[in-house]
């Protein structure tokens, strides 16, 4: 069973207009790479040139912050859900 990556609408335009993507991978980083490979414009919005997460784009694996696990090396199980939460500031 694939993993689901949920993007905010602000990033959907870099991902074919879709917010929900099914992807494959054994770690959060693999899943991000899988989706980024399909949408070249999306990759730089999710991770920096070294492939690390930005401090203003947070990844939640099954509602838990991956920074308090093993970051992009955090292992994902089949059926897991990754939610991307970028900083927004509108009011």
């Amino acid at each position, binding site marked *: 069973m694939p993993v689901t990556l949920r993007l905010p609408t*602000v990033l959907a335009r870099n991902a074919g207009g879709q917010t929900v993507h099914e992807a494959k991978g054994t770690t959060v980083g693999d899943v991000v790479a899988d989706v980024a490979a399909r949408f070249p414009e999306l990759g730089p919005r999710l991770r920096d040139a070294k492939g690390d997460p930005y401090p203003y784009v947070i990844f*939640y694996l099954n509602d838990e912050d991956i920074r308090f696990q093993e970051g992009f090396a955090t292992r994902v199980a089949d059926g897991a859900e990754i939610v991307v939460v970028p900083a927004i500031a509108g009011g």
Partner: protein
Amino acid sequence: MPIGRSAAELPRLSNEEILRYSRHLIIPEVGVEGQRRLKDARILMVGAGGLGSPIGLYLAAAGVGRLGIVEADVVDETNLQRQVLHGTKDVGRKKVESARDRIGDLNPNVEVVAHEAWLTSENALEIIGQYDLVVDGTDNFATRYLVNDACILLRKPNVYGSIFRFEGQATVFCTDDGPCYRCLYPEPPPPGLVPSCAEGGVLGILPGLVGVVQATEAVKLVTGVGEPLVGRLLLVEAARMEFRTVRLRKDPSCPACGTREIKALIDYQQFCGIRGDEDDVTGIPAITVTELAARRRRGDDLDLVDVREPHEWDIGRIEGARLAPLSRFAESLRTFDSARDTVLYCKVGGRSAKAVKQLQDAGFRKVWNLAGGIIKWSEEIDPNVPRY
């Protein structure tokens, strides 16, 4: 645990207040003591805009005794699609005055304290220090970090909400044991990466959804009712109408609430990388709307190019222009003729400056940015072009 004084010290309710708040008083969890706590509460709203509108209306209706409002803006037409605290008759008025009138009508028992200023590192501690808690309805990263750090330094809870297009976030930061804004976002995004609501738009109802969550949390903190939204980040997605809560953790290495190495407010504009003008147009050749109008009247051969997105083009355009959106500008480069004078425009001049730079980098020399964009054109040359 409620915020504020012991029950014996709380102000009493008048018979008029007992009648007005009867639907609160008959909830056992709120009761007379909860309502007296609301009457005793001093809450500061930072911003009286999209989020501040429902926050102000509901906190006033709920009977918060003192409501401070920090806001230096005036009401304009583009606010009315979501800022329900202000009405059509208020366009051009100061938002703090419009808010004071509306709240006074809604509940004359509320003391509105207008702080007609932008919150800055110079005034934040003095203003926030007068209140029990803060509700953050600002619209930029610099003020959000400022509110956070001031709340940490003063040990005041910060009820946070932010919105963009169809999405919102809400939580309660800066409680004694909970995380703060810097635990969630240690650093802001670079300027220009995340569009503001003015640039990117926002569904008018969304601040209603998120602001009401903030007002709810403020009332809960004051009365001590329920479980506050501490250590949990509520994500609202209106397009799919999904609400999700993710776990927020306090970061022991956070310089604000963890190690507490931040002992004073800093320059938040600098922290957020803002140079004073988010759109760097330095050194980009520009043409004024008056000059462009004169050249068009003379019949000069000009390639006038609109670099906005197609949905903005649909709102209105300068006659005779063609569309080449900045988001796909690389694909359009072959449509440009380096021998022709070329003028690029966008909404206010920021994106077209980037497009001019791209053309310069590609070897173009006869290319200018329209200063002030289509908005300036509408204001000074052709009022038939709609402003938005």
